[in-house]
C-alpha cells in the first residue's frame, strides 16, 4: 500500500485516543469509519428482520441478524457499507444476514458509481441454517462479481475477533481489494476445522502463534492475499479504505488472467514451504523470525519493500 496521504481535516474519530477495531462493535466501527453522522441504515433493528430459523433451535435472535447495511460517506464521497457483528453467533451468515448483504451489493451494482465497504467479522455459515447460509454465500459471491463487472469497487476490511473464515473467506477472495490487521485472520477452513479433519500433527489449533503467523494479517499481506496492512485502529482502517477506494483496479478477463498467473506463481514459489516463516525467508524478508513481533509501521515498510500490491490482478 502507499503511505497514507496527510489529510487537511482530521475526522472526529482521531480527536480521542485510538479506538481498537478488534474491540469495537460493528456499529461503532461503522460510526467511526464513515464521516461523522453520515450513516443511514437500511432495514434497521426496529424492522425486526431477525432469523426465522433460530427459534426452532431455542436460540435467541438479534434484531439486525448480526449485520448492519446502509449508506454514508467517507472522505466526503458516498459509499455503501455492510458490517458483521462477530460477537453474535460468531458473525455467521444465515438467511436474513446474507440477504441483507446481497441486497446491498445489488443496489451498488444498479447504481454503478458508489463503492462498497464490507467489514467482515465471521466464522462462515451459521450451521443452524446451513442450506440457507450456503446459498447466501453463493448469492453474495455472484452479487460481488456482478457489482464489480458493473464497475463498482468492493473493498473488504478485516480485523475483527471472528476473523474472516469459511464462506466469508470465499467472498473476501472475490473483492476488489482487502485491508487486514494482524488480528484479522483470513482463511476458508479455520484452525479447529483443519485440526479435526487432518489431525493435530497437521495443524495445532491451540498454538496461537502458529494460527496467527499462518492465517493472520501479516502473512496474508506478504503472500499477496491482502492488498494493505493496517494497525488495529479504526482510524487506520479509515485511511486504508480511502486509499483502496482510490487505487483498487477494475475487473475483467485480463485481471482474472493476471490473478490466475499470480496464484500459479505463488504455488510454484512457496509450494514446498512447511511454515509461514519459510515463505517469508523465500521471499527475502530480512530476519523472517522477527516478523510476528514487528509493530505495524515497521512491518508495512518491510512489506512494501518485498511486495508492492499488484493492481492488475484480483
Amino acid at each position: 500500500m502507499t503511505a497514507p496521504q496527510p489529510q487537511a481535516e482530521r475526522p472526529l474519530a482521531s480527536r480521542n485516543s485510538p479506538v481498537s477495531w478488534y474491540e469495537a462493535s460493528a456499529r461503532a466501527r461503522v460510526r467511526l469509519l464513515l464521516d461523522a453522522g453520515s450513516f443511514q441504515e437500511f432495514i434497521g433493528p426496529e424492522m425486526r428482520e431477525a432469523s426465522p430459523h433460530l427459534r426452532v433451535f431455542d436460540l435467541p435472535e438479534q434484531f439486525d441478524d448480526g449485520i448492519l447495511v446502509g449508506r454514508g460517506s467517507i472522505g466526503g464521497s458516498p459509499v455503501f457499507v455492510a458490517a458483521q457483528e462477530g460477537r453474535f453467533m460468531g458473525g455467521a451468515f444465515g438467511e436474513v444476514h446474507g440477504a441483507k448483504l446481497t441486497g446491498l451489493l445489488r443496489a451498488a451494482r444498479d447504481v454503478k458509481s458508489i463503492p462498497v465497504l464490507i467489514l467482515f467479522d465471521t466464522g462462515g455459515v451459521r450451521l443452524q441454517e446451513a442450506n440457507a447460509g450456503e446459498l447466501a454465500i453463493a448469492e453474495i459471491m455472484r452479487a460481488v462479481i456482478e457489482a464489480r463487472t458493473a464497475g463498482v469497487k468492493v473493498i473488504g476490511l478485516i480485523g475483527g475477533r471472528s476473523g474472516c473464515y469459511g464462506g466469508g473467506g470465499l467472498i473476501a477472495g472475490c473483492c476488489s481489494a482487502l485491508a487486514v490487521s494482524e488480528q484479522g485472520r483470513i482463511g476458508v477452513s479455520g484452525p479447529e476445522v483443519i485440526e479435526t479433519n487432518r489431525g493435530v500433527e497437521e495443524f495445532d489449533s491451540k498454538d496461537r502463534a502458529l494460527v496467527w503467523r499462518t492465517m493472520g494479517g501479516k502473512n496474508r499481506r506478504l503472500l499477496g492475499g491482502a492488498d494493505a496492512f493496517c494497525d488495529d485502529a479504526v482510524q487506520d482502517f479509515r485511511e486504508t479504505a480511502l486509499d483502496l477506494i482510490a487505487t483498487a483496479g477494475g475487473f475483467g478477463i485480463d485481471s482474472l488472467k493476471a490473478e490466475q498467473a499470480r496464484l500459479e506463481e505463488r504455488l510454484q514459489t512457496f509450494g514446498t514451504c512447511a511454515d509461514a516463516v519459510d515463505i517469508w525467508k523465500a521471499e527475502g524478508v530480512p530476519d523472517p523470525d522477527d516478523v510476528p513481533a514487528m509493530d505495524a509501521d515497521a512491518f508495512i515498510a518491510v512489506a512494501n519493500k518485498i511486495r508492492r500490491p499488484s493492481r492488475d490482478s484480483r
Partner: protein
Amino acid sequence: METLSFRHAARQRTAGSRKLALVGVVASGNLEVLAERVLPDTECQVEISTAAEGFGAVWGAVVADFVDRHSPGGLKLSINDGGARPDTVSLRLAQAVRSIAEEAR
C-alpha cells in the same frame, strides 16, 4: 424460548429527542436492548425474549427497579437475551435510556 412483557407507569418522560437506540449484543452472558420512543409519556413497556426459562420473577424485579430508578416514560424496550445476569441487564437498560436521551443530531 420464553417471552415476558412488563408494563409500568412512569413518573416522567425520557429526556432527549432520539426516537431509537440500540445497545449491547446477543452473546453469551450479554443481551441487546432496543429502545423506541413509541408510548405515551407516562408509560413504559419492557419485552423480553430469553432462552433461559423460569426466571420471570427475577426479570420482574429487575425491570421494576429499573423503572423506579430511571423513569423511562414513553419508551418501549425490547430485549433479546443471551443469558445475561441481572446486574448486566440493569446496566444495559440504563445504557439504553442514556443513549436515547441524547439529543438527535
